[in-house]
């Protein structure tokens, strides 16, 4: 594994081993070629990168802290736990790192209209936010089921001037929102830029979103070295599409001593079939523009997923994760809804930080992992988002009406 040149992936056509690629209808191929070209040009352009850094600092509030969760670490009695505080970003999650970058590219391409899909609403809010700032028209597709459980984010997007289209096809969740966004893009490809929110979709999206999110891992690596004089022993992040996880993991891939764990949504338990854990319990297939692990039936139809967290409720996963799983560089596990809820409460009560339900999956795994490690070891959790948006869901599960 030490011989892998991590920077060489994906290859020129967007492949991570057998995964990734570009599986879209012909109408979009030209737009993807154009995007790839522009992206490759600007990611190596010092002026563009300076503009991006400026926005990340002044608008998003980066760098955000790497916080030593001393009380939680002490209680668990094992490894030291550090939280990469993406929840402190403007808009409350890591999603904005990517929307800032893609919106700048949209400007460079002269596009006047932005579209996005969203599950929990965090990516939709982050997209509506940058669109408002840049004066771009914005349409966000969101499954009907998700608009119900994330009604505050729907209102937030509308306040920001975005049109929120409620998607009523299929399972009425994130995958259907993505289908609908693709249909919009294929129809309006001339003036429209599609800001995909995760490290999935056709090439160059998985690589591009990863590169915009890798700021998380770059900062965390530097901060951890500065605070402790060494690298962390483990990194833990939740995985839906996988953008916060890849953002944290990627800058550490070459550090062989650093163990990495991606935590999928186990829903009611992987054994029940009601979950959103394609890496743990799915198999490779093609959906939404890339080859990756999917949740599908024996006929190749995509099956309905379940998670308490709207942001993880998706039957696929970024292709780089599929590859990292196969080569064994990252270990993927799942935790159930109930475990995630326990993680949510533990973090809230112990550290005074209300995490998103997505993030709570990573926390839940660390509640098990940390006690198995020594106090001189350390874990970084990507605290990918804050939990304000989830208060209704948590209250509802506990029989409380707000």
């Amino acid at each position, binding site marked *: 594994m030490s011989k892998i040149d991590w920077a060489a992936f994906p290859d020129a056509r967007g492949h991570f081993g057998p995964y990734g690629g570009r599986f879209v*209808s012909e109408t979009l191929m030209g737009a993807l070629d154009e995007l790839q070209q522009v992206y490759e040009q600007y990611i190596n352009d010092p002026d563009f990168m300076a503009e991006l850094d400026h926005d990340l600092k002044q608008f998003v509030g980066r760098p955000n802290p790497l916080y030593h969760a001393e009380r939680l670490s002490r209680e668990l009695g094992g490894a030291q736990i550090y939280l990469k505080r993406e929840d402190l970003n403007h808009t409350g999650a890591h999603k904005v790192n990517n929307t800032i970058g893609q919106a700048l590219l949209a400007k460079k391409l002269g596009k006047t209209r932005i579209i996005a899909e969203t599950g929990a609403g965090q990516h939709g809010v982050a997209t509506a936010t940058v669109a408002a700032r840049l004066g771009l028209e914005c349409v966000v597709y969101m499954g009907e089921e998700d608009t119900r459980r994330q009604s505050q984010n729907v209102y937030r997007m509308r306040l920001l001037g975005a049109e929120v289209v409620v998607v009523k096809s299929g399972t009425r969740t994130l995958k259907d929102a993505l289908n609908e966004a693709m249909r919009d893009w294929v129809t309006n490809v001339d003036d429209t830029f599609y800001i995909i929110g995760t490290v999935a979709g056709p090439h160059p999206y998985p690589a591009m979103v990863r590169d915009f999110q890798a700021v998380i891992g770059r900062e965390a690596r530097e901060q951890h070295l500065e605070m402790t004089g060494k690298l962390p022993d483990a990194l833990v992040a939740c995985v839906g599409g996988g953008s916060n996880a890849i953002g944290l993991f990627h800058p550490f891939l070459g550090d062989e001593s650093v163990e990495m764990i991606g935590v999928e949504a186990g829903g009611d338990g992987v054994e029940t079939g009601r979950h959103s854990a394609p890496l743990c319990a799915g198999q490779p297939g093609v959906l939404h523009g890339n080859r990756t692990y999917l949740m599908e039936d024996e006929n190749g139809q995509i099956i309905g997923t379940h998670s308490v967290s709207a942001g993880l409720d998706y039957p696929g996963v970024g292709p780089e994760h599929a590859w990292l799983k196969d080569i064994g560089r990252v270990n993927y596990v799942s935790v159930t809804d109930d475990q995630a809820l326990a993680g949510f409460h533990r973090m809230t009560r112990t550290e005074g930080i209300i995490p998103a339900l997505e993030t709570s999956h990573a926390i839940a795994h660390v509640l098990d992992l940390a006690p198995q490690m020594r106090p001189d070891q350390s874990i970084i959790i990507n605290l990918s988002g804050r939990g304000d948006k989830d208060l209704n869901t948590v209250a509802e599960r506990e029989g409380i009406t707000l």
Partner: protein
Amino acid sequence: MSRIEQRFAELREQNRAALIPYVTAGDPEPGATVPLMHALVAAGADLIELGVPFSDPMADGPVIQKACERALRFGTSLRDVLAMVAEFRKTDTTTPVVLMGYLNPVERMGYEAFAATAKTAGLDGLLTVDLPPEESEEVVDLLEASGIDPIFLVAPTTSDARIDHVARAARGFVYYVSLKGVTGSQTLDTSALAERLEGLRRHTGLPLGVGFGIRDAQTAAQVAQVADAVVVGSAIVRLAEEHDGDADGFARAAATVVREMRDAMDVARSPGAAATV
């Protein structure tokens, strides 16, 4: 000579354009599909495009999305669709049948198993909308070895360089997507279409089919004047929804639409017909 080549050769000789109706297999119920295919042929279809239902039909508009949902209520699988093709072939050995769908069901079945089963069933072509030539090498080789034509799309946004690439991989005919959008979209600019097809003919000698946005006999006739084949999908599939589970009523209505299109197309191609494009 393949059935597809044979059919286009006959039509060329008669100076007619091919009429290719699309129906989603298993819609409104699996038993309806084979009789429907025969009815379409009797009404003047030259080639049948059979849709393979998929849970996430990203390139399709609402009409075909709903057709997929209806078919999937019966669990219509790719293997079931191939069985329908085999059943159709028992009594029709000349009308080419092309499957249109998405890659994942084919991947799940396995390329080799698909090619072998499809060959036995008497399938003639496969069009997977989410499989551009760049990703298709493996499946194309297996299809060709089984005598099944891989059909590829060309879009209004396809560059000249890509057209060559698509043309090299394509067999049977080239499917020109007449507009930017999903299936069943509204408008079709026939004069821009004529120009575009002329350009395409410089890159490929294959017959050119045109689909997306052909809604009625008049549009079909206009397209027939410049294209080698006219593909009609949503305009037929929407009749299934209108007949709400009545398979016979749907088949009769679909046959009527196909016959009207057939007649209008033949008139438009007949000597002395005024050019309307």
